[in-house]
């Protein structure tokens, strides 16, 4: 593919990803409201919020490290939007297929969290520092199970002789559910569960919202951010939701509809794309919306211990079952 074609696709994906991210945030808030028997904000509420934040004054506190404080929102937006380009989009492969693999996506997902933590440290507010420390604790807790899930899927793909095994595109084209035995299916289910638990932590949503914890540390690492910078973080968060849900879809439910309905060509692509968007929404609702309405915030030590012991154990046993399935049954 020529550079210009990639550039054109990238623009479409980035703009579309931003719009979908914000719209899904609206859906998320609407569903949360309906679950609480409220009417809830209109679906376009995130767009209104963003528009309002852009006309507000942007304050840089006197005690903040100004350049670091101002750079971090941009870094968060850049990293989350870049991750979009490495995501398989239903019938279409990643825009930057072959220019980076799943490990890169892991890092791109970690960068916004790191940027928010650095911004919190640079904000000069004790609440920001506390929030940043919590964000780092959480980052260290959930990264290991996340990596285990990715490595397990990649290892099984390489055992099938598929290359490059670490590409999200390969993972999305070769769903493993049909390729493994019964033990492997249990293993994959365990991996899926741990990834679904990691998803709200990655996005710092209830019950894993300790870095922000509005009622406790007044917004934590976001405490000093206002106006345009806050809008950028808001946008980055919305896009990260799509990326994270897209990752779950790519790893575990990459199935299309068009083949089953006997559609092909442009119509099939449109149907598959719509189906992909639906799957992303479904993952978001299951892993983020229902969980954040149904649960209260966990404590810092509960999250650290929960991820290091329980979720890691679940992910590792998933990996072990996959290995056993290959070695014993294979």
């Amino acid at each position, binding site marked *: 593919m020529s550079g210009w074609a990639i550039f054109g696709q990238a623009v479409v994906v980035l703009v579309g990803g931003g719009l979908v991210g914000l719209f899904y945030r609206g859906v998320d808030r609407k569903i949360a409201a309906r679950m609480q028997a409220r009417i*809830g*904000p209109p679906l376009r509420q995130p767009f209104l919020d963003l528009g309002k934040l852009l006309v507000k004054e*942007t*304050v840089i506190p006197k005690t903040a490290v100004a350049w670091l404080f101002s750079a971090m929102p941009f870094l968060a937006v850049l990293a989350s939007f870049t991750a979009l380009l490495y995501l398989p989009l239903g019938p279409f492969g990643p825009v930057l297929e072959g220019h980076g693999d799943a490990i890169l996506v892991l890092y791109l997902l970690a960068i916004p969290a790191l940027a928010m933590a650095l911004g919190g440290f640079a904000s000069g507010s004790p609440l920001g520092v506390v929030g940043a420390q919590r964000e780092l604790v959480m980052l260290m807790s959930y990264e290991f199970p996340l990596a285990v899930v990715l490595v397990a899927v990649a290892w099984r793909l390489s055992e099938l002789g598929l290359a490059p095994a670490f590409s999200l595109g390969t993972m999305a084209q070769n769903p493993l559910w049909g390729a493994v035995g019964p033990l492997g299916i249990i293993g994959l289910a365990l991996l899926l569960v741990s990834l679904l638990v990691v998803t709200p932590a990655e996005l710092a949503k209830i019950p894993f919202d300790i870095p922000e914890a*509005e009622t406790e540390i007044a917004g934590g690492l976001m405490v000093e951010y206002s106006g345009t910078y806050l809008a950028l973080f808001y946008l980055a968060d919305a896009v990260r939701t799509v990326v994270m849900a897209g990752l779950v879809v790519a790893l575990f439910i990459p199935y299309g509809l068009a083949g089953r309905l006997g559609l092909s060509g442009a119509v099939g692509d449109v149907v598959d794309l719509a189906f992909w968007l639906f799957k992303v929404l479904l993952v978001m609702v299951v892993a983020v919306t229902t969980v954040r309405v149904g649960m209260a915030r966990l404590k810092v030590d509960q999250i650290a211990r929960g991820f290091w012991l329980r979720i890691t154990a679940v992910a590792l046993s998933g990996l072990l079952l996959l290995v056993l399935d290959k070695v014993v049954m294979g």
Partner: protein
Amino acid sequence: MGLSAFKRALWVFHVATGSCNGCDIEIVAALTPRYDVERFGIRLVGTPRHADVLLITGPVTRMMAERLKRIYEQTPDPKAVVVVGGCGSTSGVFYESYNLVGPVDRIIPVDVYVPGCPPRPEAIIDGVVKAVAKLEKLGAKV
């Protein structure tokens, strides 16, 4: 995107300056499913930096005066101030009390008063919506 953006996306920060908790409970009541202010885009935020409107309850005790000024300064422009309850509006039953420096409008400029002891949630929502009119007037000047 003008200041009409505020019409449907107001973020509210709640400051208690020595209130008895009556007004504060009514503010929380406005968030409950029965009144559900989120359907108007009104959201309670955790820090003045995110806020468009300050909801202030209480008659302002001596210790809170400095903090109130500071919170007002921390709120990014354009902003509006809504006083909720009789104490904040007029000192109410605490009129000429030795430990008060209020009412609120002696400390910071106030845009909307919501009287009542405590005011009903409908009145609080109405007050917040009236604050939008002030923000829009600011927009007309700009």
